[in-house]
């Protein structure tokens, strides 16, 4: 990413602006699961934003809430200036073609009883065009676009490998010619050898079709390769976000540092300081007071329990939610 792009950042209105997104699920005994809490970030048109966190960080729920696949509890999602959360179910239906999703699990994301032509055709029907020959042509075209053969249209999902199924899932999402695609851990269920192929495909399609991507991942190393900006989530909250160049070079939040430390580095001469995180992610039913990360944070102090750290702008679009981010020692 060039410096010019960074300079432009503030002037161009983002395609999607998520503001204060919150999702609570009801739990037993009238308690509440705080899956996503006050999450805000922007996605510029044509860019890729990585949404990163461990299992239970709320990243998937956030992605689904933006598409209203789960109904958000509070917040806004301004898409081209229109708040998606304020739309009625009917109004949302017309927006659905602009926003699509690619799922994590390539096995359960395709109906096992439908042929590939029917799976992709369902998407074409939703778009409301193409019948008969034109429809078959369009299916063939989409299959070719994702690197499969048009002959595959008459087969069932179980005849394909995980990577091929993921390509079919991508073809389905692209069938409605979306502008914005949420990719929910699209490669984490695939073999390592296939992961790169699918990532390359996504990157290539993004350039070719001018897509805007929200890439959800639990692994910062996958995101580094693909994303312009990164949002790091923990227990439903944003810990740190910013342009990947800044965030990878100088992570400021202890959680981001720990995540980076656990990511494998493909260069044996380069070592990252190992930061061990102990214990599991706490229950989102009863999150820690103040900073939610403090129970596992190696740098936590007493004051961390007292206040919810605000997302401070530390320059260049880089934000961090840690009350100690100014201290040199951290």
């Amino acid at each position: 990413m060039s410096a010019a792009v960074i300079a432009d950042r503030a002037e161009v209105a983002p395609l999607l602006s998520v503001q204060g997104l919150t999702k609570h699920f009801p739990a037993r005994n009238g308690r509440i699961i705080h899956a996503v809490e006050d999450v805000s970030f922007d996605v510029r048109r044509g860019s890729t934003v990585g949404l990163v966190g461990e299992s239970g960080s709320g990243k998937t729920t956030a992605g689904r809430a933006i598409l209203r696949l789960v109904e958000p509890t509070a917040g806004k999602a301004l898409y081209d200036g229109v708040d998606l959360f304020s739309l009625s179910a009917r109004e949302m239906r017309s927006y659905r073609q602009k926003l699509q999703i690619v799922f994590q699990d390539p096995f359960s994301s395709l109906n096992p009883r439908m042929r590939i032509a029917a799976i992709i055709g369902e998407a074409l029907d939703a778009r409301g065009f193409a019948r008969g020959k034109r429809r078959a042509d369009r299916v063939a075209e989409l299959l070719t676009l994702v690197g499969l053969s048009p002959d595959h249209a008459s087969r069932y999902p179980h005849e394909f490998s995980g990577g091929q199924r993921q390509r079919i899932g991508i073809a389905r999402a692209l069938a409605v010619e979306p502008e914005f695609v949420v990719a929910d851990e699209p490669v984490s269920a695939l073999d390592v050898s296939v992961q790169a192929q699918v990532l390359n495909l996504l990157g290539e399609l993004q350039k070719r079709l001018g897509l805007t991507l929200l890439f959800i991942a639990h692994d910062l190393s996958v995101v580094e390769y693909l994303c312009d900006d990164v949002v790091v989530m923990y227990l439903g909250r944003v810990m740190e976000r910013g342009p990947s160049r800044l965030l990878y070079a100088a992570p400021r939040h202890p959680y981001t540092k720990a995540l980076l430390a656990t990511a494998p580095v493909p260069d044996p001469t380069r070592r990252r300081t190992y930061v061990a995180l102990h214990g599991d992610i706490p229950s989102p039913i009863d999150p820690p007071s103040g900073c939610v990360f403090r129970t596992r944070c190696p740098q936590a102090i007493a004051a961390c329990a007292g206040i919810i750290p605000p997302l401070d702008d530390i320059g260049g679009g880089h934000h961090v939610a840690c009350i100690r981010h100014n201290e040199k020692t951290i």
Partner: protein
Amino acid sequence: MAVISVPLQAEPNMLSRLMRRPTAAVGIAVLMIIVLAAILAPVIAPYAPTKLSIASRLHPPSLDHLFGTDDLGRDILTRMLYAARTSLTVGFAVVIFASIIGVVLGLTSGFFRTLDAPVSRLIDAMMAFPDILLAIALVAALGATAVNVVVALGVVYAPRLARVVRASTLVIRELPYVEAARALGVPTPVILVRHVLRNVTSPLLVQGTFIFANAILAEAGLSFLGVGISPDIPTWGTMIATGRQYMDQAGWIMMFPGAAIVVTVLSLQLVGDGLRDLLDPRLAKDI
């Protein structure tokens, strides 16, 4: 996030895989013979089903009457063949009728959270009645005709199917392909039929086979008790009921129809077991 196991893959060659299981193959073969015999009853039956012959009443099995004759001199084998038509038709109609009710109740309670509690309680209430008593009460209220027997037994067995459908629907509702359809803006009724119903057919088929067997048994029970199909239509149940009075002198009158019930129900159970094993990934041995 854990990878969700995929329930029940589409099986284009299910019948051939089922036939590879010896017990299921025997069940299917026997069932086919019974169905064929029922269809061909007018051709293969040695006598007319209503032909009375007082002179030859209570004849034991002989070359003239392979399975003997009843108290009115009617040929048991002939009547058994015709009775098979009634029993199989009633059994099948019960499965269809119960499936329609069960699918509607199961899909709505499984898919729509707000409807789950009321519909599930309705299902529980229906299941709280003893099967045969509820059927007797319904037939008594509606009148003893073949159609009413089907309706009564359909109502009795529908809750079981509804539970099976609801359980599968609860799982399928959360699967990404349903979410994908919602993300595409596919209308909910279409999602229910195209994505949910289509994927509950396997457990439905298994349960339907068992209900087929139970319905044949229950129909025979109702006919035996005299609250089923009218006695002049031959069914295995009515034949046993008439034979009961002559149990000491002419045991064959109830023995052969009884055997027919046992064989039919057993074969259906074997097929059902085979299907269940084939479709249940936890029990599958040959994946």
